[in-house]
């Protein structure tokens, strides 16, 4: 414990010495962690940095001394020694002890890091191309979280905001001080759920469930990103975790549940083209725009155009089929059936057929989607 306190002091001392470089843009070290295990890792890193700095200075002190003093131009004559078993043994054995010294705290930290037992709550995180799906297994809440940064900022047509690329529409909300167990999996390819301040990085693997955990010690917003290459929008699927007080969390759960209830639709109702189109625009901009682009032009040949597209302007059955079941020919087109509701799919199909330069005038009703799922 004493060593830890000392290391922390060293860490903060370094930060004080360099006030100018300690601002966000010039951060030279790991971000200060919001979890106990995160601080252990921070200290472990500091410890190793101190050890390697000392060794580095020692070894290269010798080298630079030789470079200055043992050069031919100052008339140094080469000695011809080239062997010493004693020396070899010394510099084999000493590093072993140094390594054992490092392995000890590392092992302790690792055992804590991987102990996911006895969680207070469990959240299943699913990686999709390219968004995160969150499912609160205890509270029965389920939603998707996608990048909220507008395309205009990315393309440079608009001023970039403070949290450029690190903002989402629906952040993950968790209570402070609770052990949150995260189950990760993926729908399509590998992703990795990474939030540095919570000391969490866990690969999300399709077909498998892995777990990790964190217990946030302070409230706040923590931002991370997908850390495993998952295709073209890999850099555009951030993670935002809002740690709130227990009360705020309860309140959030209530509103979230109410919100989900409102969204439930009436299967008997027939929606108008305009209604569907306005809902569909939102769905399109969240889920489709990355590949098919804001103007529906796509990026042929991998991502075909919606505008005047063969399927988008063809019979509705074909259009519904490809959105619900994905493409058999082109693996980049995911099956959206499991991810979106009937209304959302109906809306986005109607939007595609009546906007983005298409004007077929037909409305696809949620009932048709429900039928197509069977």
């Amino acid at each position: 414990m004493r060593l830890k306190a000392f290391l922390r002091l060293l860490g903060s001392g370094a930060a004080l010495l360099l006030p100018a470089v300690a601002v966000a843009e010039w951060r030279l070290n790991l971000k200060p962690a919001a979890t106990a295990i995160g601080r252990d890792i921070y200290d472990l890193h500091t410890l190793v940095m101190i050890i390697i700095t000392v060794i580095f200075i020692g070894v290269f002190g010798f080298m630079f001394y030789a470079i200055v003093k043992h050069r031919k131009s100052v008339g140094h004559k080469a000695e011809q020694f080239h062997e010493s078993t004693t020396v070899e043994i010394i510099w084999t054995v000493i590093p072993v002890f140094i390594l054992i010294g490092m392995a000890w705290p590392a092992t302790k930290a690792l055992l804590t890091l991987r102990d996911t037992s006895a969680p207070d709550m469990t959240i299943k995180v699913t990686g999709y191309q390219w968004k995160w799906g969150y499912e609160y297994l205890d509270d029965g809440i389920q939603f998707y979280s996608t990048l909220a940064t507008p395309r205009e900022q990315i393309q440079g047509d608009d001023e970039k905001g403070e949290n450029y690329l690190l903002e989402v529409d629906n952040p993950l909300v968790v209570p402070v001080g609770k052990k949150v167990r995260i189950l990760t999996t993926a729908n399509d390819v590998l992703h990795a759920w990474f939030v540095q301040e919570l000391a969490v990085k866990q690969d999300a693997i399709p077909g498998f469930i892995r777990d990790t955990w964190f217990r946030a010690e302070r409230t706040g917003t923590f931002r991370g990103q997908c850390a495993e290459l998952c295709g073209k929008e890999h850099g555009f699927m951030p993670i935002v975790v809002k740690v709130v007080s227990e009360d705020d969390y309860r309140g959030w759960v209530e509103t979230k549940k109410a919100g989900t209830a409102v969204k439930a639709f009436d299967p008997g109702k027939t929606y108008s083209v305009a209604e569907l189109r306005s809902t569909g625009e939102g769905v399109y901009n969240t889920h489709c725009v990355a590949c098919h682009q804001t103007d529906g032009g796509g990026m042929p040949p991998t991502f075909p155009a919606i505008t005047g597209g063969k399927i988008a302007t063809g019979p509705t059955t074909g259009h519904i089929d490809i959105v619900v079941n994905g493409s058999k020919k082109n693996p980049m087109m995911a099956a959206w059936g499991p991810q979106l509701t009937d209304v959302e799919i109906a809306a986005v199909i109607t939007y595609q057929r009546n906007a983005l330069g298409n004007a077929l005038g037909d409305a696809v009703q949620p009932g048709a989607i429900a039928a197509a799922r069977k």
Partner: protein
Amino acid sequence: MEAVHEHDHGHDHPSGIMRWVTTTNHKDIGTMYLWFSFTMFLVGGVMALVIRAELFQPGLQVVEPEFFNQMTTLHGLIMVFGAIMPAFVGFANWQIPMMIGAPDMAFPRMNNWSFWLLPPAAMLLVISMFVPGGSAGVGWTLYAPLTVQQGMGMDLVIFAVHILGMSSIMGSINIITTILNMRAPGMTMMKMPLFVWTWLITAYLLIAAMPVLAGAVTMTLTDRHFGTNFFNAAGGGDPVLFQHIFWFFGHPEVYIIAIPAFGVVSQVLPAFSRKPLFGYASMVYATASIAILSFLVWAHHMYTVGMPVEAQLYYMFATMLIAVPTGVKVFNWVATMWKGSLTFETPMLFAIGFLFLFTLGGFTGLVLSLTPVDVQLHDTYYVVAHFHYVMVAGALFSAFAGVYFWLPKWIGKMYDEKLGKLHFWLSIIFFNVTFFVQHFSGLAGMPRRIPDYALQFADFNMISSIGAFGFGLSQLLFLYILVKAIRSGEKAPEKPWEGADTLEWTHLPTPAPYHSFETPPTVK
């Protein structure tokens, strides 16, 4: 009587393109390997500059994200398989026969084939960019199941990897046989120059690791086209299996690149210290232990896939253990310089640059070996910085040292020492400008392989991009130095480096004759 065409001294061999296509001479083939490698180095370098240009500022300015991913993939594959590995095979071809007193390689015709497999493979990699859907955008690690989503470019990349593997295996069998069976009388194993030793060990690693890579990409291919489910979870496969297979090859591959670099440095440092290599035997043993350990630590690239904690502990301890033999090597090199009579010609400068920066890369490797720390740094720019210290400041600087060191022996002419030193200083400064700051981006949590990034990473990325362009341009100076030396270099003295004591310097004229040793030298 028939007139007999007779040439007594140094007959002329066929010239023109046919000489190079049909040659079985180890020096010709070595030269081709080296030029091929340099060409690929420039191609891969341009790709790196595309990456750095896009990352100069936040936002998407230069390329689309898919193309960005293809650039990172091809940059990695081309630099590893097209630039660094062939460079050291080139050194092996030139130097091993000369250093062990052999006339040529053991299987000269196979040597020719192993070189000529490379250009078609490189063509496949380059062509893959122009097929519909573009090249593979999956990273050089080719992780499943993203590979299944790729277009035809992925298949071309797989074929290219197969061909490169075939070439490596033929080359390795040739090198092993040469070293075993063609040493001059008196050249016992423990008298071989360390460069030869490192290649013997490298060839061993290559032969042991290559079938695994071939199997991995074959499974990727059958998963893509023939309905197998090795890595497809929906069909009962396991995506993580690919990573185990890939890194079982991939970690030894790291040492396949690094170990010959150790060899070159172990020749250059003693030559310019005018002092024998310190701890020769322990260097041999350390290299061999690194090679053996390299097959036992592969999953340290996979700390975040969710292995059982016992496995993570094992891989952490085994990985930390590599620091011991690596440390022995670094200490031995410093001890070689200690109390020598040092001069600082370009080869020595690059060797010292190697020693200094490779060790730095080794230290960050030690940081990454600790699983809990790696969980924070895995797949961030910290890792990118770490392996570029090992690959660029390690392997590439060592290759530069080797070229400057042996160029006089190869072509009989000297390079321009002033320009060589300038090349060194530009390279080392811009290298650090490019990659040192990436440690900070990584510590702050910037993931690798992203085409756009949050504003907090902007300053370091801009510095890094400036450094990368400086580094890239400095390499054109290297090309100029080479061309100048070949066309109008001063005639090299018989023994340009006072302290060099291996056979090629002591027993062969400068430049080395077309065939190395007509009669074997006797090694005392």
